[in-house]
């Protein structure tokens, strides 16, 4: 395969990553003709995904991610530690089983005068994370690095018992279900009891504060030491101060776990889910054993598994005030997203960012006509989908809307993104499965007949005007949840058999 007439120059930037990847190898100096080329501009960020900073300086990505003081979650410190290129990093990640508090890597990162989109969040050193967000779209290399690290970490965590120091517990119960208030009370009471190894602060939903069935005052009367340790959360507290909670316990079904993921739009504390009724995919523990389950969890430690989440950014098209001569300048979304960039004008602005655990769906909403959606992957225009909508799903969400739309069922540990069309008007659309390092974009073309609607995990339905698009990529904040120690695996196939009746049929009798 060597071509002696040409010498392909190698420009390996940050080659040390290849040791982690174990993939593209660097040919040593001995072999001169076959060399490896990395695309030199894979650090480059397209204008359509840039954010104008305040001082209007040239936007450039800094190579290292400084330690984010706002993400003091233990797991994320591990993730952060891995990201730094080896020239500045520690030799190895800290051994997790021996530490019980967040590590502070001894890294000095040169303060960069130039800003990047990624660093925006870490500039805020105050405790509250701002609720308005900027696009945190990572470059391809950062994404590959991150995905690799998460996968690596997940593998290691799967075989470890992590002993966490738990002081603050968040309790999430299925919403609108009055019958569960009694059960919530039982768990709260148990957690607040002085019999626990260490005094815990328990946060329950604000609406329970005055609820007669919950009877908070009686709880305190029965257990005086609990005074001051029973607190309340609402849907603002969790997203603003995720680092206040060390542990989350959910009571309900998969929907409750999904809601918990929604509450934590950045780091997520480890989540332990109790199933109250039917078998779910994310609820691994039976409520009836909650006392022993929680005792063992606090005393011996937990096995944590990481589930991929997506980070979805809604990008709004900037309206150009001046129209060119003749008819209004026809804008083309394909050109704007992957074509040549002309001029300095930013074509889009980020509007909102969401972390999702299941899926993001762009569909026709209340419009009677089909929606037209342009689909892009990295720098490629995949196709124009004319359908009711598109569903981009995580492996966790493969049993949700993706299943209904005809997509494949994916084991949750697969590092993939599933793309399925909802009622496509062609005979030849097959659902496709992409690696989790791909950055997908779904946009409404400028000449679309109607607007489309985007929904994230079934919530926050947002209308997308012609020219707007949604970027979907693997999130740097995976969802960490607790697995039962006895059954190490996910027992996923068992769950789909039971809940979905997967491949169930009367068995054919043998001939004899």
């Amino acid at each position, binding site marked *: 395969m060597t071509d002696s007439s040409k010498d392909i120059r190698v420009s390996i930037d940050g080659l040390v990553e290849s040791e982690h990847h174990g993939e593209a190898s660097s040919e040593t100096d001995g072999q001169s003709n076959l060399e490896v080329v990395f695309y030199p501009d894979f650090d480059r960020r397209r204008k359509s995904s840039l954010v104008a900073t305040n001082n209007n300086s040239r936007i450039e990505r800094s190579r290292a991610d400084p330690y984010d003081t706002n993400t003091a979650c233990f797991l994320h410190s591990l993730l952060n530690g891995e990201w730094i290129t080896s020239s500045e990093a520690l030799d190895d990640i800290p051994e997790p089983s021996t530490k019980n508090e967040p590590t502070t890597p001894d890294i000095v990162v040169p303060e960069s005068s130039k800003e990047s989109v990624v660093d925006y969040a870490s500039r805020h050193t105050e405790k509250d994370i701002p609720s308005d967000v900027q696009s945190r779209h990572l470059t391809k290399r950062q994404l590959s690095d991150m995905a690799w690290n998460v996968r690596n970490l997940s593998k290691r965590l799967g075989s470890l018992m992590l002993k966490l120091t738990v002081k603050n517990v968040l309790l999430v119960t299925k919403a609108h279900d009055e019958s569960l208030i009694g059960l919530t009370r039982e768990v709260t009471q148990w957690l607040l009891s002085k019999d626990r190894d260490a005094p815990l602060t328990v946060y329950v939903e604000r609406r329970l504060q005055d609820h007669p069935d919950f009877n908070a005052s009686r709880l305190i009367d029965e257990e005086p030491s609990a005074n001051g340790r029973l607190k309340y959360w609402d849907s603002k507290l969790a997203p603003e101060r995720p680092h206040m909670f060390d542990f989350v316990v959910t009571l309900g079904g998969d929907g409750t776990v999904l809601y918990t993921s929604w509450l934590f739009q950045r780091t997520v504390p480890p989540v332990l889910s109790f199933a109250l009724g039917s078998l779910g995919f994310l609820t691994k523990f039976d409520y009836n054993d909650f006392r022993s389950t929680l005792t063992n969890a606090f005393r011996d430690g937990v096995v944590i598994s990481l589930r991929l989440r997506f980070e979805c950014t809604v990008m709004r098209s900037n309206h150009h005030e001046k129209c060119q001569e003749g008819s209004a300048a026809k804008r083309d979304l394909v050109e704007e997203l992957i074509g040549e960039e002309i001029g300095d004008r930013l074509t889009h602005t980020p509007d909102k960012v969401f972390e999702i655990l299941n899926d993001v769906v762009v569909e026709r*909403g*209340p419009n*009677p*006509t*089909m929606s037209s959606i342009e689909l892009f992957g990295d720098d490629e225009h995949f196709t124009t989908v004319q*359908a*009711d909508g598109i569903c981009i799903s995580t492996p966790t969400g493969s049993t949700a*809307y993706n*299943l*209904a*739309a*005809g997509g494949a069922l994916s084991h949750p540990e697969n590092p993939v993104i599933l793309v399925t069309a*909802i*009622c*496509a*008007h*062609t*005979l*030849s659309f097959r659902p496709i499965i992409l690696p989790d390092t791909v950055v997908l974009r779904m946009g409404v073309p400028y000449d679309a007949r109607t607007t489309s*609607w985007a*929904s994230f995990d*079934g*919530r926050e*339905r947002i209308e997308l005007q012609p020219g707007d698009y949604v970027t979907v990529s693997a999130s740097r904040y995976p969802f960490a949840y607790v697995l039962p120690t006895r059954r190490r695996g996910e027992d996923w196939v068992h769950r789909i058999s039971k809940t*979905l*009746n*997967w491949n169930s049929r009367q068995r054919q009798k043998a001939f004899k």
Partner: protein
Amino acid sequence: MNIAIPLLRRSRRGTILRRRAFSTTSCHHQIKDIDTLPLRLIPKYQECRDSDLLSLQWPAPPRNILLVRKASVPALVASLVEFIKYGAFPGLCQDCLTIASHITSNYPSISIILEPNSAAEVHHLLPCPVYTNTSGTQLSELAHDRVDLAVTLGGDGTILRASSLFATCHNVPPVLSFSMGTLGFLGEWKFAEYKRAFRELYMSGAAAGDRTLSLEDPKPAGADQGAELRMGPTGWSSVRGKSMGSNRGPRILMRNRLRVGLFSPDGKPIDSKGETTRPGGSISDGRVYALNEVLIHRGKEPHLAIVEVFVGGRFLTEAVADGIIISTPTGSTAYSLSSGGSIVHPLVASLLLTPICPRSLSFRPLVLPSSTPVTLRLSEKNRGREVEVSIDGKNMGQAMAVGMEVRVWDEEIRHGKNDWRGGVPCVMRRTTGVEEADDGWVGGLNSLLKFNYPFGER
């Protein structure tokens, strides 16, 4: 709207005659009310020996022609501006004008009926009045009694729109469709062939009343002069020499529709205004006909719809899905296709039941006999939510609440050997030089759907 803009009036030869001010008074007498037209003629349909399709016989030449064009976006003002700037009406309006002019100049005593906005745009360019509904009543209600023939200019969507005008009419007039672009499924003619298409259809049945009229003999027979006189100057004699004979007439595909009704939990029919009415009687008795499909959909609600499905009176299953479609064979290539339903030829009398994104691994679309009535009932498990009901892509206006039922029957179209009433009679295209009328279905399958497209690059 009153716009004092000078307008150029063109004669049939295209020369500019004189400038005329655009004033409201002269507008009005060019647009007449559809009510003033004579009642429609009901044609007869017969089976043909040489084809699966039917032939059509007019008892007398058709007089009231409805022209339906593709729903256009530009407002009236924009069209006028275009006209003044470029000296011509854009695209579709021009085609509409071409056909209307051709018909009115070559066929006597024909009245052109247009939808109100088309009438406003086009009337002053025609040398004769146009008809539309000038009173408050919907065109669809008035059209049932007055329209002899509907001509559509546009794609499948326009044909559907024209058919929707007759959605509450039991006896639909023949539909002659012209495609402005790609040929679709519904057997449209190419626009370039409009003269031939219209002539064939107009003359269809002329030979039945006059035995000697044929290509070979242009003179009328003396024996039938009495019949001609009875017909008066509007008879086919005035277009003598253009008949092609009865066995060269157009072929008609009678498309089955579905009869749909929305019923309250206690069994009373509900009309589009949401009121329960007594069954039978007027148009608004809850009976609507669907040419493509009737569908129930959760709409903008994020929750799935839970629907009980009854087939032939018996409970089939409880569907948890985004929605359910009950489709005709004509509609099998529309939404039903997108949802995974089978593709069914329009001559196969059947009814398709297709779920939209069902929450199940095992809900396959069903094909039922057309005689099977189907009922869809919104289950109480929906917790007080409502779902949308759409017929042929148009929301019925009345949402479906818990306990309500959508009942679907086949439209009975054949009442005797040659007694066809009901269905949408579509005039199938014939390409020049080809004897047989083709039903357009295979062409549509290949060109529009790329059916069984081979792998590899062409």
